[in-house]
């Protein structure tokens, strides 16, 4: 039996234990007292806001424990500071960045100051993931949608959103730059399928690659999505596709009067906001390009009543629609889950660069009634989707059009295994 430690030694060790106790209890204290204030994190939404309720069933099947584990991780005191410290260490010591705590997908830092989201980079690096027969099947369904809408007097255009890693690969780290290829992506295969089936579509990737020498801000350095100028150019090139369908009277293509450089909008620096760093060269703000639309003939103003169905690329796209002043009504059915509206005449793009006029209309699930509501009175439908949403079958929009306007006998046969409902994370 060793002799007991001396009293000063016990006091010293007791002091260390008291410090340790404070360290262990501090997060609980901060969570309960909300003091000192935590750091706000960008790009992070807790999945569990309230403490999970316990029932005998949830306790016995283990789901209570699983939910509490997630809750504890997301609500631990001073979580914001801890996450930011983790990001800073990873960034400063290992050159790593990750967008938000709940996402596994890492960001990739390009040659300063360009940031890339890994999900789109991965798409440009790996072989196509969607089987060709699935591509073909989806393209055939879109052709059917186009035909059904044409019978209703509504032109339909698919706008394929670009992949930043393919448009601007030169800023990527060497390991990725040398491997990025358009042919790797599902995008190119889908373009081929749309072409074969005669679907009217805009290949914005090809367009952007052609324009990039003269337009460095089509996808801003800190953005995932196309910037305001990029979306504007995409819209300018969509109008001839509408005119070619010959359903509506000829629409003028609005000219670009000038491009103003201004403070980037949240869409233009969304990756920056997700870095959650204390300090980094990337944190400096880079001005974005905002197109100023030239006036259009008075008789063309407000002629279009547009429904945009799509993923997050749709937000800047509806800004471009509003900017052109061709549209009298703009609705955006985001992932076929929530509805937004943009009020076209609310601003002059010469005076106001940003996008303050998009309003949420709330949750709008896919149903016949909502389909009638969203399509009622419209004279243009645009489907905007990016490469990793190709296999989502337009989130059910084409099936809805079939239900509204189609004859079941003429509908494309359901391809086994490819018709399941797709769960969509609105955060994406």
């Amino acid at each position: 039996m060793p002799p007991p430690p001396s009293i000063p030694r016990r006091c010293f060790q007791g002091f260390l234990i008291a410090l340790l106790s404070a360290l262990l209890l501090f997060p609980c204290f901060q969570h309960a007292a909300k003091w000192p204030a935590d750091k706000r994190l960008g790009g992070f939404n807790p999945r569990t806001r309230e403490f999970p309720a316990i029932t005998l069933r949830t306790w016995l099947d283990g789901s209570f424990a699983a939910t509490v584990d997630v809750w504890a991780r997301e609500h631990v005191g001073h979580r914001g500071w801890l996450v930011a410290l983790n990001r800073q260490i990873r960034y400063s010591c290992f050159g790593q960045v990750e967008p938000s705590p709940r996402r596994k997908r890492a960001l990739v830092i390009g040659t300063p100051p360009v940031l890339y989201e890994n999900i789109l980079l991965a798409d440009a690096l790996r072989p196509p993931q969607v089987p060709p027969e699935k591509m073909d099947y989806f393209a055939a369904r879109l052709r059917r949608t186009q035909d059904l809408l044409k019978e209703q007097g509504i032109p339909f255009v698919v706008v394929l959103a670009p992949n930043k890693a393919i448009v601007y690969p030169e800023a990527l780290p060497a390991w990725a730059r040398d491997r990025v290829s358009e042919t790797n992506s599902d995008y190119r295969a889908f373009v081929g399928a749309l072409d074969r089936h005669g679907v009217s579509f805009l290949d914005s990737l090809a367009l952007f690659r052609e324009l990039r020498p003269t337009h460095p801000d089509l996808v801003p350095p800190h953005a995932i999505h196309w910037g305001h100028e990029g979306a504007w150019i995409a819209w300018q090139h969509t109008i001839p596709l509408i005119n070619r369908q010959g359903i509506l009277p000829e629409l003028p293509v609005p000219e670009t009067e000038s491009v103003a450089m201004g403070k980037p909008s949240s869409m233009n620096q969304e990756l920056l906001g997700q870095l959650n760093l204390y300090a980094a060269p990337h944190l400096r703000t880079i001005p974005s390009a905002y197109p100023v639309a030239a006036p259009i003939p008075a008789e063309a103003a407000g002629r279009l009543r547009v429904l945009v169905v799509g993923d997050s690329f749709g937000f800047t796209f509806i800004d471009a629609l509003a900017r052109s002043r061709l549209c009298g009504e703009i609705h955006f059915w985001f992932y076929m889950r929530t509805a937004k509206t943009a009020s076209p005449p609310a601003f002059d793009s010469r005076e106001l660069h940003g996008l303050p006029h998009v309003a949420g209309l709330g949750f709008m699930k896919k149903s016949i009634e909502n389909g009638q509501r969203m399509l009622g009175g419209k004279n243009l439908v645009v489907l905007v989707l990016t490469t990793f949403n190709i296999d989502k079958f337009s989130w059910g929009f084409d099936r809805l059009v079939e239900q509204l306007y189609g004859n079941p006998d003429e509908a494309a046969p359901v391809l086994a295994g490819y018709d399941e409902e797709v769960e969509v994370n609105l955060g994406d």
Partner: protein
Amino acid sequence: MVFSSATFLFYFLPAALALYFLSPPRGRNVAALTASLIFFAWGAPRFVFVLIATCFVDYHASRWLPRGRLPDPKRKLLLGLVVALDLGLLLYFKYANFFVAEIHGLLGWFGRPPFAWTAVVLPIGISFFTFQKISYLVDVYRGTAQVAGSAGRHLLYIALFPQLIAGPIVRYHDVAQQIDRRSTTTGLFLDGFWRFAVGLAKKVFLANTFARLADMVFDTPPSLMTTTQAWAGVLAYTFQLYYDFAGYSDMAIGLGRMLGFRFLENFNFPYASAGIGEFWRRWHISLGRFMMEYLYVPLGGNRKGHRRTLFNLWLVFLASGFWHGAAWTFILWGIWHGTLISIEKSLGPERMKRIPRPVAIAGTFLLVALGWVLFRSGTIHRAGGFYLLLFNLLPDGAGLLTFPEVMADRSLWLAAAVGIPCAFAPALGLDRFLPRDPADPDALPARTVALRFAASVLIFVLVATEMCASGFNPFIYFQF
């Protein structure tokens, strides 16, 4: 509940320590048992009743096991019955799905439809606590330990939360006295926290970093990889597994010390072994000891001739493989080690000594690493494809497209630079630079205590940042 989770570190651990140390010394066993049952019931609430009920049966049966309480044949029969009950539960919970799947396969072979079967859920930690239950019963039967003072003390030995889920497998006679009487000093508590922090660091900084490469390689079809990438994945998994499990064992030992328990070591630089026998004396030491005492020796050990010794060894490793998991890959892994150790035994110590030690260490490491392919692969088919690729018998695949991203990860290189030399420390003469376990933590110089405390706090904070920033990542040995 996982040690490296926010629930454990920020809620359970402070509450359990407060409950334990605010209880009067006589009530600390009750406090530790309460915390342990909550810990177990957290992830597997239904099975806590199974645990309590079987411990109750074991304890009451054990009261009749000491010599003199019953005639020897009846004692033996009673021991057999209770051990059979414990093993029966393990067989049912862990292996029923496996056997049913095999029977379904056989029925399909004969063109018969499978019968209806609801998959059995595996209670977490059952492999470990079943062995502890057997240890208690056999120790009492052999007279190497006395019957536990009460059913509660017996339950505490089985369910003590630091070692409940993934070991070390504590033999009853090693801790029997500590359950009845133990002293907790401030020095031991701080030493326990230091050990816990070291384990956290091994898990979070080393094992999880190696896991990124290992997971990428093992989750990719061999046809898409090159031989070099496959070897990189095998090496990454070899170190991931070591630091994951050794990290868990450190945490368990550290938590035990914080509560006043001294568990035996579970790892001793296994990759620095110069033979498979030595490897198993250094890797998962508590399992090796259990197998030796409670299976190898009862089978006859080395007392029944050379051939029988080899067979016994082979059988022990077969059982060890099957204990690790209900899959053919684990059985093959056990056979692999059983065969290697039988060959080593046949060669004899003199011939083994003739092999230069660095060569023997490298060879042992290679053989062990090859065995881990079976451990990780999931199916024999997949393991087979992997072996073909490792030995360049498959045409080189297209290469992992995102592999360069992993190789560009500086944290992986840092983990390799720290983790690999540390794993081979005795062979490289580096072990003298590594912190040693003090016999009496209160006798450590105050400066060392302060430095260790500061390092522990730093590790703890860094782990907390990592934990908040990432998702759930359980220990590999939890599945066993």
